[in-house]
């Protein structure tokens, strides 16, 4: 089963895939995830229903979705 990080952006979204068996590939996605979290993005683990708000990268999750920070409009 593919492991995907979906980043909400002006392209609709950008997808990064990784194989948990590959430390290098996992690290690339982890670094991207951490960089976005440092910018106060919000991350969801959607592997199960209902989903879950997370603060740390989960290498074994099948679907992570990360969005920019929310503000009241």
């Amino acid at each position, binding site marked *: 089963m593919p492991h995907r990080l*979906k980043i*909400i*952006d*002006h*392209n*609709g*979204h950008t997808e990064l895939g990784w194989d948990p068996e590959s430390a290098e590939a996992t690290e690339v996605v982890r670094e991207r995830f951490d960089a976005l979290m440092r910018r106060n993005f*919000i991350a*969801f683990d*959607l592997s199960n229903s*209902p*989903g*879950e*708000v997370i603060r740390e990268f989960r290498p074994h999750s099948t679907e992570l*979705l990360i*969005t*920019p*920070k*929310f*503000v*009241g*409009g």
Partner: protein
Amino acid sequence: MLVAALAGVLAVELQEREFAAAALLVLWFAAVVLVIALRRAQEPGQPDNAHRSRRLAAGARACHLLREHLNEEQREQFERAGSFVVVAQSGRRYRIRSANTSNVRDETDGASYCVQFRSDPQCLRIPLEDLMLAQKLLLECDEPQFLRIANKSSVPDRRGW
């Protein structure tokens, strides 16, 4: 008198030649302007067309992602009315509609909520369907955070609902 007549004829001929030369010059200039105008008409605002294409593609991609995360009932609601109902952690039902502001409504008391992405240039170009998906996920996964962040209007807003 003959010389004068010849000079007069020559002057007229010169005037005619000058007139012809001037006319040719004007015609040439008009042709150049016409060619430039035609070329511009054939390639209208390429940068704008490319930008518009990117925006349309991003919107389609966002719509597809949103639909992937709706259940069958929500998908039908969205296709029919451009809105769908989300059941939050507390059990309260919220309707999320296709609008840029105050697009989340509590179905119980009619209060509307406005939650958006932060206002920087990159976020302003994020498609609306992505915002709707993010709002849905936040309501389902962390309703208290949604309510903390959102600007709430207690006056029922029935426009477009």
